[in-house]
């Protein structure tokens, strides 16, 4: 029996939705098992880091890495899996562009810890904060250090392919697995390194069935506040839909259901900064000339960062807010 190629999947700073999306490919999961030897997948099977460390470099054929790099454990495993894997895929929005955990890049890491352990919803009368190292009779024990900013996978290691989505659509995962299996059987070739796989090359609008006209935005509305025309482009109805800037691949599921695209598939091919693109697009079609009118319309966007950078903050040109950058220069490891 010839050895099957090895497969790994890892979660760093993420929610676990990507793992569920993989399982959601139903019986296709059997193809994974049939074609691969799953060597490391913490959410699905028991494994130890030292086992991975012991593997030969480049011995894992395919690693799907989801989650952003939030702490030094994430960083260590990212570097480790890079070394051990032939093909490393940034899987899902967090690994690609930071996603929701990346929004924490607006605050410095101490502020984040403080919020977690000292808000009014937290019962912490003795002001106990976690320490990253602690002496016990058996020796010193550690928990991971939080990094000043959350980084995307390719800000830490070299990435071969990118698979966007929060999470990636199951049919897209299935298609990618099909492709890899065909490559293994010599029936297909891998795309060039750096390619975005499991997604389209245009935007969500391309897959959206709604009618589009020349755009003019008179005001921004929220969906719970209005009667939505089921056939007309949401943006034209004043709903801040991110579809025009978001990579296609999801079959425009949200707009089809009457909810605006919030941009989980990330920037379209060739876009440097997702939020900047959207801001300039929205601003271009505001139906106003006077500064006060413009301000009034823009006030309709209640959470600009959440609107324009919900998924892409860590992967944007700016990458983080000022407090997080400041933290980088003053960061020191917490001492016992």
């Amino acid at each position, binding site marked *: 029996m010839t050895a099957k190629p090895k497969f790994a999947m890892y979660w760093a700073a993420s929610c676990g939705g990507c793992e569920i999306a993989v399982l959601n490919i139903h019986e296709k999961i059997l193809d994974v098992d049939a074609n691969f030897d799953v060597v490391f997948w913490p959410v699905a099977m028991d494994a130890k880091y030292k086992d991975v460390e012991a593997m030969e470099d480049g011995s894992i054929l395919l690693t799907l890495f989801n989650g952003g790099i939030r702490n030094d454990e994430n960083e260590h495993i990212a570097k480790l899996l890079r070394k051990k894997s032939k093909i490393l895929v940034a899987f899902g929005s967090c690994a690609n562009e930071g996603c929701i955990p990346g929004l924490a890049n607006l605050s410095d890491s101490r502020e984040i810890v403080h919020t977690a352990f000292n808000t009014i919803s937290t019962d912490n009368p003795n002001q106990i904060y976690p320490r990253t190292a602690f002496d016990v009779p058996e020796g010193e024990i550690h928990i991971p250090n939080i990094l000043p900013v959350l980084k995307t996978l390719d800000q830490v290691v070299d990435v071969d392919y990118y698979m966007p989505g929060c999470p990636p659509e199951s049919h897209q995962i299935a298609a990618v697995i099909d492709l890899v299996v065909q490559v293994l059987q010599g029936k297909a070739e891998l795309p060039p390194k750096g390619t975005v796989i499991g997604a389209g*090359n*245009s*935007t*969500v*609008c*391309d897959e959206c069935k709604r009618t*589009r*006209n*020349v*755009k*003019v935005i008179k005001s921004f509305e929220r969906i719970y506040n209005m009667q939505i025309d089921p056939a007309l*482009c949401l*943006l034209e109805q004043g709903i801040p839909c991110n*579809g*025009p*800037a978001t990579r*296609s691949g999801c079959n425009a599921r949200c707009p089809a259901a009457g909810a605006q695209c919030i941009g989980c598939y990330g*920037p*379209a*091919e*060739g*876009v*440097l900064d997702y939020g900047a*693109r*959207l801001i*300039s*697009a929205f601003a*271009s*079609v505001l139906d106003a000339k006077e500064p006060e009118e413009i301000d009034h319309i823009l006030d309709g966007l209640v959470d600009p960062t959440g609107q324009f950078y919900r998924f892409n903050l860590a992967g944007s040109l700016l990458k983080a807010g000022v407090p997080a950058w400041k933290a980088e220069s003053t960061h020191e490891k917490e001492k016992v």
Partner: protein
Amino acid sequence: MSEKKLERVGVYVCHCGTNIAGTVDVVSLAKWAEEKLKHLGVVVAREYKFMCSSLGQELIEKDIKELGLTRVVVAACSPHLHEKTFRTAAKNAGLNPYLVELASIREQVSWVHTDKAVATEKAKAVVAGAVSRVIENKALEEIKVPINPNTLIVGGGIAGIQAALEIANAGFHVYLVEREPSIGGHMAQFDKTFPTLDCAACILTPRMVEAGTHPNITLLTWSEVVNVSGYVGSFHVTVKKKARFVNEELCTGCAICQEKCPKKVIDDVFEAGLGYRKAIYTPFAQAVPKFPVLDKENCTYFIKGTCKACEKFCPTQAIDFNQQDQYVDLDVGNIILATGYDLFDARRVSNYGYGRLPNVFTNLEFERLSNAAGPTSGNIVLRDGKTTPKSVGIIHCVGSRDKNFNNYCSVICCMQGLKFAHLVHERTGATVYNFYIDMRTAYKAYDEFYQRVLEEGTLFVRGKVAEVTDAARYEHEKGKLIIQVEDTLIGKQRRIPVDMVILSSGLQPRHDAKAVGKQFGISCSTDGWFTEKHPKLDPVATMTEGIYIAGCAQGPKDIPSSVAQGAAASARVLDKILQKEVALEPIKASIDHDKCSGCRICNGLCPFNAIAFIEDDQVSDINPALCQGCGTCVAACPAGAISGTGFSDEQIMAQIDGLLFRNLLPVEA
């Protein structure tokens, strides 16, 4: 990226005499570029006194040929000035001209800094940016388009008439569009012109007649441009010919209709409200064309359904009450905008009392009062129509050089005020006071005129008038208008009682100048005047190819300057016509149809109407002939499907990397 073959870049640092070399260490800048930018492909960096000189250009050309340069960066002045010079030099040496970049180390560095060390550091950053960018530049080819020899001129004042005659005399066709019933503009309203005191009508009307009868000029009066599309060489223009209710084929201009029309209307336009016209009228006797216009709002027939006196008496049955507005489509290659000015509304300076105090007049009212063909046959009288004033105050700079209204100088008011002083003096013998801030009598024979008026005994008070009032404090002020002013030459407040006040109101951009500018794709200054391509070297061209400006539309000016600009604009148009075709800058936007998903955000944005939506493919598309490369759509496209040649993301990001020294080799500690 790493396998990319290095370009061979030449860097040329210009001293610009001491303009740059005085503030930037040009020698060390060139040396630095040769050493520190070597890894980017810089193979040579030189400095020279004047790169734009023929010797400087030869230096570059020689290097291109001998060193096989594939990219050139000239660190010198702004691209506005010499980009073309160096592109041509590159072209002469066989290098595509678009592979040349200018690094502006004069306007953006030496002229705005004083610290030499800091300025030199900044110059390095600018040069590193330009080198990084030029590597990403692509060879581009110019686009040639044919020039339609017809020209549209908007505005039939003296500037527009002059331009029309020049082009028509050269043998090319002109469409002259005028909003009012007659050409002639403001000049037709004046009595005398300064400083020669020529009769305005005597010198203007022959030009008007010439324009009206010229075989190469089509007059479209009582008309307005409603739509413009296209680009230099091939504009499509739609002109709305407002219904005159007079058949121009039949009308002989006999004016019987005007004589017989029973309805008198105050003429607010031509007579500045001082006189009357009929409901069917020509604004003045020498109007061109001779056909009258029927004013529907005031016509008894249109209001009550009966009258038709004009129709009854017209010997040629030329009156046509059923006439409709017509839309005329024109194809032209070039457009001159000579749309003139509006007079500043003197009511806005409420302390001068215009509109409240009857014997306060505006300059235009005075022009009509003193005009022999005007409502008083040239008698200068008070508002009652009979009393000759014994003393007259003329206030300069009304609405001009005033932070509350317009900051700029309206140019003509000083000379106009002097002309008024002379006319009042000559015709009434009244005592005349001129109130001025500074007397500005530049240009030929102007100051001599000032001397003459001084000798005539006109009194000059240097000071900005605070108030004109009829509230008398002393016996001798009763029944008079009192001018309260600080006489800055004697340092005292004065109250000067007069019978009549004339306000020398300034000039303002046309109330609709912004909209007209937008229609023709040109911009206005913050004051609202049309913006010229270069304030000194290209005053009649605009940033939009094929659109020229002349006369007061560009800024306040006197008649000789307006005429000169009209002629200058026509010379530019003739130059274009005679070239038969024009090379357009290949800086264009284009849409990648694979990336475009037809969101239609760009569709309404193009100022040149170059973007169309293709229904069948559900994508947007740009017509390269219409695109002017402004970049609006490139910035707006959320999908990154639109790119602009010459301004690609790669070029801009590379330039930023260079500016931030991010792509320098690590410097040794």
